[in-house]
């Protein structure tokens, strides 16, 4: 399979590899995929009290496209609000890395991973800082369906 230079660069020099303490209140963790399917992504975000993602880390078991997709999304989510991060679409990742059709599921997994990490963070904070976020999300949802 031939891959884009961007994809190969993310595979060769993955950004933001590592782990954060998943018990830290500031940290949200998403773990998606399954070993039997050949890919597992762990994506973690560190969120400021203002609800901005200040850091992101990942570890991925999977093909080169899965590694590159998760590396890319850690770059993208930094500095974003939780909602902005949740709004990242797999198609944007697929486009940026020029994923071949059989590898589209890798970008889907990356989207699932960031959503799961945001969800985990929100669950930890049980709806406090969240109310505003939830409203925003509902607004965004409305805007999309309109």
């Amino acid at each position: 399979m031939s891959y884009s230079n961007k994809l190969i660069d993310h595979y060769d020099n993955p950004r933001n590899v590592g782990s954060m303490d998943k018990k830290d209140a500031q940290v949200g963790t998403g773990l998606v995929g399954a070993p039997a399917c050949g890919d597992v992504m762990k994506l973690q975000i560190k969120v400021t009290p203002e609800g901005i993602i200040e850091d992101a880390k990942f570890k991925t078991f999977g093909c080169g496209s899965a590694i590159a997709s998760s590396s890319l999304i850690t770059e993208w989510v930094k500095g974003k609000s939780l909602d902005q991060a949740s709004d990242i679409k797999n198609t944007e990742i697929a486009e940026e890395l020029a994923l071949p059709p059989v590898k589209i599921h890798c970008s889907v997994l990356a989207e699932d991973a960031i959503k799961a990490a945001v969800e985990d963070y929100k669950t930890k904070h049980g709806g406090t800082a969240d109310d505003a976020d939830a409203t925003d999300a509902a607004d965004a949802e409305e805007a999309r369906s309109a």
Partner: protein
Amino acid sequence: MKKAGKPIYLDYQATTPTDPRVLDVMMPFLTEKFGNPHSRNHAYGWEAEDAVEKARSEIAALIGADPKEIIFTSGATESNNLAIKGVGRFYKDRKNHIITCATEHKCVLESCRHMGQEGCEVTYLHVAKNGLIDLDNLRQTITDQTALVSIMGVNNEIGVIQPMAEIGAICREKGVFFHSDCAQAVGKIPLDVNEMNIDLMSISAHKVYGPKGVGALYVRRKPRVRLTPLFSGGGQERGMRSGTLPTPLCVGLGEACAIAGREMAQESERLHYLRDRLYLGITDQLPEVYINGDLDQRIPGNLNLSFAYVEGESLMMGIKNLCVSSGSACTSASLEPSYVLRALGVTEDLAHTSLRLGLGRFTTEEEVDAAVDEIVTQVKKLRELSPLWEMAQEGIDIASIEWAAH
């Protein structure tokens, strides 16, 4: 053989380069000796026919057969189709049961499946964890309706050698034809169709340093095996395979067999040494590397390893200077991991982490050492990147987690 600047080729089960000595013998038949070997009335034809018959003898000699029992084909895929469909169709009205094995090459499995559609019963034998069939199971599976048993000599993914002599003895005792796909076995291990009671044997040239596009089927004459040909035509090759023989390719296969026969013992020893060096070099430096298939009942030029917690395709992307194959799904469009590894009972997660390393005639010790370094470095790097490796280090049992399949 000059290889500077080229990546290291460790995929000898996929194909082998044509040996320069083979090419030398082929060349005149691509140029001045261009005759049709079936032209019976002039010198060009006779010259080509002599060359083809010499090649036939060389092939026969390597497997202990009579030259008249060798049918040229386009390769092992055609040979397997011809053996299974040919015998299946010819004997179907009397006996309609075919036995094969779950780890056979796709062309064998598909040919058998096709015969199932034409009304045959097909039994797929299971293999043990080491990749070998159970002989008692085979014996019990044979009925008075069984026409053919088709079991490969050497597996293309894991290199294990099936007990051919024992299978042949059972088949002969039960009066059943024994076909063996020996594409990966010919020239690698000693074979004798009479000692092993093999009735049909598929042979490929490009797996044994011959050219691509040619192979052969051994078809026993005593007791006679009959088969319905796949295509209609001029009735060449004892009526079993019509079509003008490709003289240069036939000559190439003959020479490849002659060289393999002369050099097998010595080459086998050399490859054993290199394979052990590769295996020990890797496992000395990396924990949790598992071998797929029996290590002893295996051709010396094959290793199939699972590197736990590292996905096969990403490993292949990392070892940029090595050309290998993976049993991982991600190398194919199907997204299913290797059916051969699955048949051994290798769990899906480990099947995703496998690499097939194939060594051959032009592999050097320097290449093996370079391969060890590159594989070890990349596996270490990818394990640092692997959430599963991290969990394993923390003592978390990955099997105990409820993963959401996707």
